[in-house]
């Protein structure tokens, strides 16, 4: 497992994704700070945090399965990185593709949440356990709408292969024809990443740090990196599917940054949702809307 992670890491694309993740993480934090009328962190902040965590002592809580405890963050990051193989990194064509790779990529991206949940569950700390339950609840409530929302474009394009869908979307802006899907996908991504109004699983004022409470040092760093990779992956997918595809690095940067601004805006504007609202909101509206749109598309296709 370590070897495969290593292979992915030295892979220039993997490295690029990591750097890209750190940068986007910074931009996100900086934007939120600016929207709150503050200066915010310096450009190297996420990198410094990461290096520091990697250098710090990693405390192994008593009474947990040491192997699982250390393996989970690795799996989480590896999963997120592996998903990137199928995505158009920086607007370049995906490294690998095969029919149905969309589903694989989306599931690899959910691996992180799953690992977070598991990590919390084995930590035997009360805050971790609630955090874990919440993370898993949220997994089910965001993952599904996110997937459904991405299936919209797939359906429109009539393919489950990412590069084929992109070929279709680059000729038209699906955000115009499928606005609901776009919103659901973006919110779903924020939910997956546990970003501000949907950060119930790690609500600091309520349960300290959620599933991550017992993690320190390296484990925490890997989880955070995984999340950054996922941010990049998610934004890439959404931009590629809804914002008229991404054809070159410049296009990529422009579109994902616009998305990031939107994400920051939502983060600052809203109050954290309670976990029941989170679930309720997404099962009831998110999933339904996505499904509705999907059916509509189906109908259209049948009609034509």
């Amino acid at each position: 497992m370590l070897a495969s992670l290593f292979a992915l890491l030295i892979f220039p694309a993997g490295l690029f994704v990591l750097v890209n993740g750190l940068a986007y993480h910074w931009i996100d934090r900086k934007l939120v700070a600016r929207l709150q009328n503050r200066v915010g962190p310096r450009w190297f902040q996420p990198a410094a945090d990461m290096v520091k965590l990697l250098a710090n002592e990693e405390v192994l809580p008593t009474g947990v399965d040491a192997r699982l405890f250390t393996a989970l963050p690795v799996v989480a990051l590896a999963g997120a990185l592996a998903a990137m193989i199928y995505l158009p990194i920086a607007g370049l064509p995906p490294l690998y593709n095969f029919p149905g790779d969309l589903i694989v990529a989306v599931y690899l991206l959910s691996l992180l949440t799953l690992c977070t949940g598991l990590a919390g569950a084995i930590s035997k700390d009360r805050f971790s356990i609630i955090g874990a339950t919440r993370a898993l609840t949220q997994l089910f409530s965001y993952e599904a709408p996110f997937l459904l929302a991405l299936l919209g474009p797939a359906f429109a394009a009539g393919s489950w292969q990412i590069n084929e869908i992109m070929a279709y979307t680059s000729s038209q802006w699906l955000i115009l024809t499928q606005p609901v899907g776009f919103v659901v996908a973006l919110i779903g991504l924020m939910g997956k990443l546990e970003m501000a109004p949907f950060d119930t699983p790690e609500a600091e004022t309520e349960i300290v740090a959620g599933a991550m409470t017992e993690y320190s040092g390296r484990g925490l760093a890997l989880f955070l990196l995984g999340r950054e990779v996922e941010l990049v992956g998610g934004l890439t997918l959404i931009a590629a599917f809804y914002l008229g595809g991404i054809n070159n690095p410049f296009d990529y940067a422009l579109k994902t940054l616009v998305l990031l601004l939107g994400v920051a805006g939502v983060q600052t504007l809203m109050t954290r949702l309670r976990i029941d609202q989170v679930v309720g909101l997404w099962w009831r509206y998110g999933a339904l809307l996505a499904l509705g749109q999907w059916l509509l598309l189906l109908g259209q296709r049948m009609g034509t």
Partner: protein
Amino acid sequence: MDTFLKEGRWSQALEQIKLWARLNSPWVIHFNSGSCNGCDIEILATLTPYYDVERFGIKLRGSPRHADVLICTGPVTRQARDRLRRIYEQMPDPKFVIAVGSCALSGGVFDGCYNVVGPIDAVIPVDVYVPGCPPRPEAIIDGVVQLLGKLQQGARP
């Protein structure tokens, strides 16, 4: 010989990087061991737009496991003593302690009260002391900056 030198340089560079990261990413946890809240609000104020310590990479964490710096306020009351010690022990190494406010330094007005054990350094080691009752948010930032300065000089690994 050659490789030995190279390795030396390599590990030196690594140390440098680690130090740089540590200096630029001090995550803090705050504990009130019996203060009047005065110092605590000023610490909270340093997070808000006027002072915004996120500029220095400072983040307030709830879990001692994620924190590098423990900021303590208030004299230590009997009831809080063990908790203070426990939080300190839970933090991963290397860890640092800043005592904020006259109470945390000497007991301040509360010195001699029956339920007060004493200042923070009677219970755990303290790296930087910030006097004031309460110190202004800028003075607290000054304390943090001094701690970072101390770190940079390598007073403690």
